[in-house]
Structure formats: structure tokens, C-alpha cells
């Protein structure tokens, strides 16, 4: 204790004097300290996040190949985008991703309840469930591609064992998106599981004991005592899942490259494809802007909700 607080004590006054001096110089305004403290994070935020977003929106108004001169085209990229059949395929897939990805918090919660037992063996089981979290998504994608291989894959082997023809999941224009979602879900479930396990460890044990005394049974205990306490976690888990589902790109790049014939693309992949392979930075930026607009809705909901919660807690 003494050792650790010692140096801090010597540092604090010197900082204070520096700030006090600055305050004097600035004419005694109390705004200087917060302004100074906010400057580094704010400038980083502007430099790394706000300015690229604005730049990207700006580029979307140009026709540009990434190196040569850019020509101003106004909203032509957007007009083309809204007439592009591929855009609607991507949009539909984005919607599928969004809906089915929301299974992740549900399955994650169920698994968390199951794994939240104080048994020694459970540690091993837990670590098995955590595994996809430490694997790079690209690796998960490659492994699932092998599962789905219609000749050598494990799914093909299972289907043949029961005497039926295996589906070629990644070659089928309707199944392909679901195939990729399942692979991505595997990792996302683990992510939600970690969040819920952390949430479960924070439960108020006195409240549970009291509820037990009042005769709460399994379901009513879960529904009225446990679940309300997990609400903030559940909220975070689902918003993060939504955002993850919208920005998913790596799995698609690894598993199908948007194929067969563009039927598994999402907006993020289409943006990459347009910019990198077709040399159309302006068009890619327009897709990015649309994606950003969609994401902003969820981010706004998230911000509004957490700000309100903070206000309530105060």
C-alpha cells in the first residue's frame, strides 16, 4: 500500500501545479483542465475515426480508381448502387445475417446457464466452449469450408452414412449464406457466452436466497430474479452481435469470396470487391456510406439506451 501510493503522491502535486499555472495563464477559467484532458482522446478520435468517415463520404461523390485523378460525379454512385441488383442481394444477406446472428445471445445465455456450475470438470468444458474465441475468424472459416466440402467434408460423410446425397452448401445460392452464418455463429456464441458468464458471476446472491425463501422455483427464479439482473449484459451482447453481423466480411472472403456468382456477398464484402478488384474507390465508398448509415441506427440506439441508463443510475 505505502509503496504503491508513495510515488503517486509525489506526482499528483506537480501535475496540479502545472494545471494551476495553466489555469492562471488562461485567465482562471475552469474549462482549461477538462479541455486539456479531453484534447488527446478527442484529437485521436477525430484523426482516426471522424476524418476517415468524412473522407469516405466525400470520396463517394467521385469516380476514382484509387490512384489517378478523381472526377466529381455527385450522387451518380448512389444512383448506380440503388439500381445494382448485386446491392439488393447484399442487402438481403445483411438482413439474414442480422436476424440469424441474434441467435448468438440466446444460445450464449443458455450455454452460460448450463456452464455456470461450480464443478471442477466444468472448467474444462468451459474452456472448450471458449475455444472459437481465441481462433482467428479466418481459421474458423477455413475449417468450416472443409466441413462443407461436398466430397471429403464431414457433412458429406455423415450424409453418405445415412445413404443420402450431401448438399453442396457453399455452391448452393440459397444455402450458402446460412452456411457462412453458422460458421460465424460458432464464434459469436462463444463471445456472448463469455459476457453472460461474467454477468452471472455478478448476480446478487442475497436476492436469490431471498427469492428462494419466498418460494421461487426454477423458471420463476430465472424469469423474475436472474434475467432482470442480466438485462444490461443481454443488451450489450445483442447490440454488439448486431454490429458484428453487419461488419462481417472475413468469413465470406475466406469461404466463398462472395460466391457462387455473388450470392453470398454482404455490403462490407461488396465494398471490398468494388474497391480492390474493380478499382472503383468511389463506388466502394458509396457502399461504405450506406453501410455506415445502417450501422448508425444501431449505434444510436445503443448510445441512447446507455446514456439513459447512466442518467437513471445517477
Amino acid at each position, binding site marked *: 500500500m505505502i509503496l504503491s501510493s508513495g510515488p503517486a503522491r509525489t506526482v499528483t502535486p506537480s501535475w496540479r501545479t502545472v494545471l494551476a499555472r495553466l489555469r492562471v495563464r488562461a485567465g482562471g477559467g475552469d474549462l482549461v483542465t477538462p479541455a486539456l484532458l479531453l484534447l488527446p482522446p478527442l484529437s485521436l478520435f477525430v484523426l482516426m475515426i471522424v476524418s476517415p468517415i468524412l473522407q469516405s463520404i466525400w470520396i463517394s461523390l467521385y469516380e476514382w*480508381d*484509387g*490512384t*489517378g485523378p478523381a472526377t466529381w460525379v455527385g450522387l451518380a454512385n448512389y444512383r448506380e448502387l440503388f439500381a445494382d441488383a448485386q446491392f439488393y442481394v447484399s442487402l438481403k444477406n445483411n438482413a439474414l445475417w442480422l436476424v440469424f446472428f441474434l441467435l448468438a445471445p440466446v444460445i450464449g445465455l443458455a450455454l452460460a446457464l448450463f456452464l455456470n456450475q461450480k464443478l471442477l470438470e466444468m472448467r474444462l468444458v468451459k474452456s472448450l466452449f471458449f475455444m472459437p474465441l481465441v481462433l482467428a475468424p479466418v481459421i474458423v472459416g477455413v475449417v468450416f469450408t472443409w466441413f*462443407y*466440402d*461436398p*466430397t471429403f467434408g464431414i457433412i458429406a460423410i455423415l450424409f453418405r452414412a445415412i445413404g443420402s446425397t450431401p448438399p*453442396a*452448401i*457453399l*455452391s448452393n445460392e440459397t444455402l450458402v449464406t446460412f452456411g457462412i452464418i453458422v460458421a460465424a455463429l460458432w464464434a459469436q456464441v462463444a463471445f456472448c457466452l463469455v459476457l453472460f458468464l461474467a454477468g452471472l458471476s455478478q448476480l446478487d446472491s442475497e436476492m436469490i436466497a431471498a427469492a428462494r425463501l419466498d418460494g421461487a422455483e426454477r423458471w420463476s427464479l430465472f424469469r423474475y430474479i436472474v434475467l432482470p439482473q442480466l438485462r444490461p449484459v443481454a443488451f450489450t451482447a445483442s447490440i454488439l452481435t448486431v454490429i458484428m453481423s453487419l461488419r462481417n466480411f472475413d468469413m465470406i472472403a475466406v469461404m*466463398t*469470396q462472395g*460466391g*457462387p*456468382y*455473388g450470392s453470398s456477398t454482404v455490403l462490407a464484402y461488396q465494398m471490398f*470487391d*468494388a474497391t*480492390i*478488384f*474493380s*478499382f*472503383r474507390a468511389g463506388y466502394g465508398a458509396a457502399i461504405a456510406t450506406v453501410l455506415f448509415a445502417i450501422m448508425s441506427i444501431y449505434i444510436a440506439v445503443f448510445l441512447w439506451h446507455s446514456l439513459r441508463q447512466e442518467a437513471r443510475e445517477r
Partner: protein
Amino acid sequence: MLGESAMTKRGLSRRAATAGLAVLLTGIAGAASAQAQTLTINTDRSGAGQKAAMTKIAADFESKNPGVKVVINFSDVESYKTSIRNFLVTTPPDIAFWFTGARMRAFTKRNLFEDLTDFFAEQKLEEPMKPFIAAVSDGDKRFMLPTNFTTWGFYYNKDLFEKAGLTPPKTWDELMAAAAKLKASGIIPFTIGTRDLWANDLWFDYLNLRENGLEFHMALMDGKESYTDPRIKKVFELWAEPIKKGYFIENASSYGWQEAIPFLSQGKAGMYLLGPYVRTSLPAELHDKIGFFKFPEVKPGVPNFEELSVNGVAIPSGAKNKALAKQFLAFFAQPENIAAFAKAGAVLPSRIDVTLDDPFSMSQIEHAKAAKGSSQFYDRDTDPEMAQIGMRGFQEFLANPERVDTILQRLDAARVRIFK
């Protein structure tokens, strides 16, 4: 003066400052003189073999030219494709490896590559590199030194052909007959992996070259001919035959081009229209089991055009040491160096006057020499965006040949928009 004030404290510090400044200045001068003798090379040929060969060529060049230091920045192919557009503008190296053809012209159009026409004349490279000159030319100027090239054609399982009593087909009808025979004995006639799209291009390119000739093919690549032209429809009719008869492997888009090779080597499939990667992906003891024949004749009277994909190396127009870079390219172009570099990458050197120790490579050089003319590859000959849309269309056609009209209309709409 310095000596006088050296005793005083101020003098001492001043002397230290002067000395520091001197060190700094020599440092700058040293850096400048070193820079004049440093040759920077950016390359995406980063496979272990090519890396070693490149490092050796650089070391030989250094020992022949004392005072010169060669710095090579290796990078993987895919990220190089994205970074080259930045570094050519911002920090151009002295030498950059790249693809030839349309992908080269994308840069020469913007004056990012140095004109090498005089260099070719001085080094007398026009003759030994003749089949590859068109690929590195924009108008009548040369912009890249071809380093190596790839040939394409049918790779087949020799045992299966022998068992079925087949010989390499010479015409399209013979090819279809061979496929029918293989199919009847339960063997997949053609294996192909189209997940990464490009393997399909060979079928389109070759059918178009064999049916309509090189001039029409290149006009189509330049956006001057239509995808709804009856000549293109004919190509797709020809292509539809093996598809509709089930000669292709099922679910081709589930496999990457590499994943489709084992079907051939394991005797489950008879043929694969691809490049020498078929051989290099397999262990050496299997090489003798795999044979090669060129894409057969489709329409009698159409001369023998081939697909030869040429890679090369350029001097960016922003390079600092252009003279030294040319000196290096001249050294690199020497037959023994260019052959060693190609051999290390299991590709063919872009000089027809070299002798190679490997009979397969020699046969491929002959194959290239025999061509009346050559295109490169769909995604190198046409606009990159057109290529992306076209390749997706081919992938869809292979899975759903009945959608041919919608696909061709889509392709042509894209062509009209892109080549406006």
C-alpha cells in the same frame, strides 16, 4: 579560433556543438551517397524458391558492382496488388515487379512506368523475347521487362486415358468423345475449382480464341465487341455441351482451384484445363502420371492461338536511380539469371533462346513458340471490373447453363457502362 576558446566552458560547448553538427552533416552526406548506390526492389514473388533465387541474383549483382547495395522488399501477392497503387505514387522503388497486359497499361496510362523501348534495343532483347513483347507494350513502346510466363492447357491422368484406350484429343469432337467415354466408365471427365473464379476463364478464353480468333477476342477484351454478339453466343453453346452432359465435376464452386487437383491425381477425374500448377501442387513422383495436351482445335482454319500469361518487372517513373535500375534489369535479363529465377518459381523464363534441363519445361517453351499469337488471360486482358463481373457470370453459367441469356445481357450492360 576553436583552439583558443576551447578552454572556456562556452567554447567547449560550442566545439561540441560544431562537432555534433559535423557528425550530423557527414551523416546526411553519407546517407545521400549511400542512397545513390542503393537499389530498392519491391516484389510479390515471395515463394521460398523465388525469394532465394532473387536474393542470389541481387548478391551476384552487388559483388559485380562494388558499392551497390540492393534492398528487396518482399510482399505477398494479394497485399501487393493493393499496395502497389500507393507506393508507385508516394514512395516509388527503383524496380517493381508486376503483371503485364491490361494491368500494366492501367499504370502506363498514368505515366507511372518508365519507357524501356531504348533499353530493349540496347540490350538486344526484342528477338529472344519476341512472343512476350506484345504483353509489355503500350502502343509501340515497351514498359516492362518480361521475366517469366505461364502456359495453359489440359492436364490429364495418363493411367485413366490408357485404361480407356484414349489418346490426347486433337479436335473438340474428339475431346467430347473422350469425355463421353470417361463418363461412361464412372469417371468425372473434367475437374475444375471455380471458388476463386479464374480457372473458368480458360474455358471461355480458349473457346473464343479457337472459334473466333485472336483479333475478335482482344476486341471483346477492349470492350469493342458485344457479349450479346452471335459469335459469343456460339462460344457459350459450345461450352454448354459438356456442362449439360454432366462432364464437369459437380459443385465446382465449392472447390478452390487447388482443391480440385486431387480428383485428377487420385484417378477420379480425367482432365483439368489449367496451368503448370497442377504439376507443382503434386509430389514429384506423381509428375510422370500427369500428361499435357493443348486445347484442341474447335473450328478448322482458325490459327493456333494460345494463352500465355506473362509477368514482368518495371522501373517506376518516380524511381531515384533509373540508370542503376536499368543496369540491374540488364543483368537480370541474362539467360542464366532469368532461367534460374523462373526455375525457382516453377514457371518458364521469358526468353526462347534458353535451354532448360527439364523436358516438361522445354516442351512448354516449344508450345509457346508454336503459337501464332497469344492473349494472356481474361482477368489480365480486360478491364478489372469487367473481369470481376465476367468471371462471376462464367461461374453462374457453369452451374446454371440455362441462364445464358440473362448472364450475357448482364455482362454486356456492364461492358457498355465500363468502356463508355
